[in-house]
């Protein structure tokens, strides 16, 4: 980590001239300067100009950043330094930079920043370093410089409309399978697909149907028990958006458009985002701008699971056998709390569910990024070691609470905290809200499947089978409906 950051920093001290601007025009082959200029021009906004010029180099932002804190306060990891030496240099050189320079940026803009926006809170001017880094990402992406793991997700979106390349049919199959499976526990449970005019359209992270189908099942249990009028769309069900972090706006627009289109077509009341942070950021805040929607608001209100679960529990639509007894702490995903304004909602829900809650410090909108955001987790093995090093801040926060469980309403944070758990032997269990709710909820009498009767029926069937195979066939054909 420190090796690489030093390399990045060697380019020039902030005072020195922009790096190698002279080389680029003579060797236009490796760098498409025109493209870079176009991206810089498109993002040459009043705020960008202002931020680049008024940063008073006060250094207050340094302490906000967990990369800085976890790496011996390496001054080159301070947010201002990273911005000045990436996007600042790009603008100063008017885009005429060498490939070597751009390659050195990859490390800075993906390896040293998760675009968590904590630094904006620490800056007297509120300079939005994350947005500046995002433009630098777009520039590098345009030149094919992007971590492989992220590049793959944008290819997948282009091919299939979702980041994990899961065909829509498989998504529906998974829903049906889960409806059947969880229907054995809750009588009448279904996962309605494409239900017109439903109140809520539930969207997920593709890793749920892909690797953790129970997440879909648990959500269905909760919605069914709460008596919600809900549905899942057959297309546009992927709420995530890693192209947003890769720096490709055009591709980032695709999943958002699919989702909005589905919601509008079905005429639903709201889009519900699964327990995922960046999906919420994409769907609610950035998405409208990817699509150029005037006014910057999604066509249908977007809410996060945390909000919906809070409403359900607060309104007593689901009763608990008892509150969760273990000591828990709560991870504020940046994109739910700091960048989503839901830190109080999250706490309200924790307190509705758990009796022993200890907060991390700092917390709420000031909570640190887990260290896996901004596309870091999908960037994969080449970045893993550094992810563990800078995640130490989060690991220490968790350790200090003495909690046994960490509730995490974000898939990225979830993976990261699980990794930190192993790396730093935290000995905690990482859980989602869904897991806690479904574990403790009281299933009303009317929803308890008639187990005894069914068993009897089965036994009878078996008995009949023994008596006459033909008779049995007929019988099951009738019952099969």
């Amino acid at each position, binding site marked *: 980590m420190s090796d690489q950051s030093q390399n990045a920093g060697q380019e020039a001290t902030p005072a020195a001239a922009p790096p190698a601007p002279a080389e680029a025009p003579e060797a236009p082959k490796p760098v498409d300067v025109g493209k870079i200029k176009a991206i810089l021009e498109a*993002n040459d906004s009043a705020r960008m100009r202002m931020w680049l*010029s008024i*940063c008073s180099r006060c*250094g207050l932002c340094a302490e906000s950043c967990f990369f800085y804190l976890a790496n011996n306060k390496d001054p080159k990891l301070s947010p201002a330094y990273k911005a000045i030496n990436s996007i600042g240099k790009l603008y100063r050189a008017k885009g005429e930079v060498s490939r070597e320079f751009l390659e050195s940026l990859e490390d800075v803009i993906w390896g040293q920043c998760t675009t968590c926006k904590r630094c*904006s809170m*620490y800056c007297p001017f*509120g300079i939005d370093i994350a947005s500046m880094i995002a433009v630098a990402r777009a520039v590098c992406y345009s030149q094919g410089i992007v971590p492989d793991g992220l590049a793959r997700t944008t290819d997948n979106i282009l091919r299939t409309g979702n980041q994990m390349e899961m065909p829509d049919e498989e998504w529906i199959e998974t829903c049906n399978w889960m409806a059947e499976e969880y229907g054995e526990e809750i009588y009448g449970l279904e996962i309605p697909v494409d239900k017109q005019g439903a109140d809520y359209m539930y969207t997920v992270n593709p890793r749920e149907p892909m690797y953790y189908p129970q997440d879909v099942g648990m959500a269905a249990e909760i919605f069914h028990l709460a008596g919600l009028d809900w549905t899942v769309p057959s297309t546009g069900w992927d709420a995530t958006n890693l192209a947003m972090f890769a720096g490709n706006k055009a591709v980032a627009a695709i999943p958002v458009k699919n989702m909005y289109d589905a919601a509008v077509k079905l005429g639903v009341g709201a889009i519900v985002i699964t327990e995922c942070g960046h999906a919420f950021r994409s769907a609610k805040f950035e998405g409208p701008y990817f699509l150029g929607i005037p006014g910057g608001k999604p066509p249908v209100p977007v809410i996060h699971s945390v909000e919906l679960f809070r409403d359900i529990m607060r309104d007593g639509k689901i009763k608990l056998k008892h509150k969760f007894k273990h000591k828990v702490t709560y991870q504020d995903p940046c994109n739910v709390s700091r960048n989503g*304004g839901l830190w109080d909602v999250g706490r309200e829900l924790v307190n509705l569910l758990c009796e022993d809650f200890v907060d991390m410090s700092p917390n709420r909108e000031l909570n640190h990024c887990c260290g896996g955001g901004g596309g870091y987790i999908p960037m994969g093995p080449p970045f893993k070691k550094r992810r563990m090093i800078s995640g130490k801040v989060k690991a220490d926060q968790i350790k200090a609470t003495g909690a046994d469980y960490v509730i995490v309403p974000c898939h990225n944070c979830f993976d990261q905290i699980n990794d930190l758990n192993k790396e730093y032997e935290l000995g905690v269990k990482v859980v989602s809200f869904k897991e806690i709710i479904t574990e403790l909820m009281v299933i009303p009498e009317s929803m308890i499947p008639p187990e005894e009767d069914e068993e009897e029926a089965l036994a009878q069937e078996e008995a009949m089978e023994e008596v006459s195979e033909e008779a049995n066939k007929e019988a099951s054909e009738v019952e099969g409906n």
Partner: protein
Amino acid sequence: MAMDKLYEFLIGPALWVAVIVFVGGLAVRLAWLYGLSRERDKPWHDFEDPKWAWRSIIHWVLPWLSVSSRRQPVFTGAVWVFHILWIGVPLFLEAHNLLFEEAWGWSLPSLPAGLADWLTLVVIACVLFFLVRRLTRPEVRVLTSAWDYFLILLALSPFATGWLAYHQVGPYGLMLNLHIFLAEVLLVIIPFSKLGHLVLFFVSRASIGYDFGTRRGARVW
């Protein structure tokens, strides 16, 4: 004699030019940025809301209302004092107000001379503190260029030379002219440098207030 002529020039035409460039430069920069923002800063205008602008600004205008300012209380306290004095002392200085009176027949209330003298020393002390901080804290030093040192010394120079002139240290005429000249250079540079934060601070804080507050429902301080 030459000093007197120079003085006449500095306090006459040169001052006019400096003030016009200062005010005009800031106004033009503001207007230009605003125009650009209408075209390119959609989120800013989509979510404009005076309430969040105000909240965002106030939490950084007053000291220690933001987390970050509380984490470095001495520095942010010094920054606060410095800014108030940097604007207040020249405006309410008796010598300046005599000139205002002479020129326009109108002036602001004046600080007692002794107090103004001490406050000038406080400004100088603040700047020395900033310089030491800049040189000793690695995360600040790494961000600092020669231009940053120049600007902070320039911002201090009218105070230093004014103080020296007032106490008749060194040749008075030269010191006085230097004092006026440096103040004018400063005025001219402000609109075109990071010192433009004199007004852009408010713009920047308002726009981030909209982004975090109106748009995302979150605080940014």
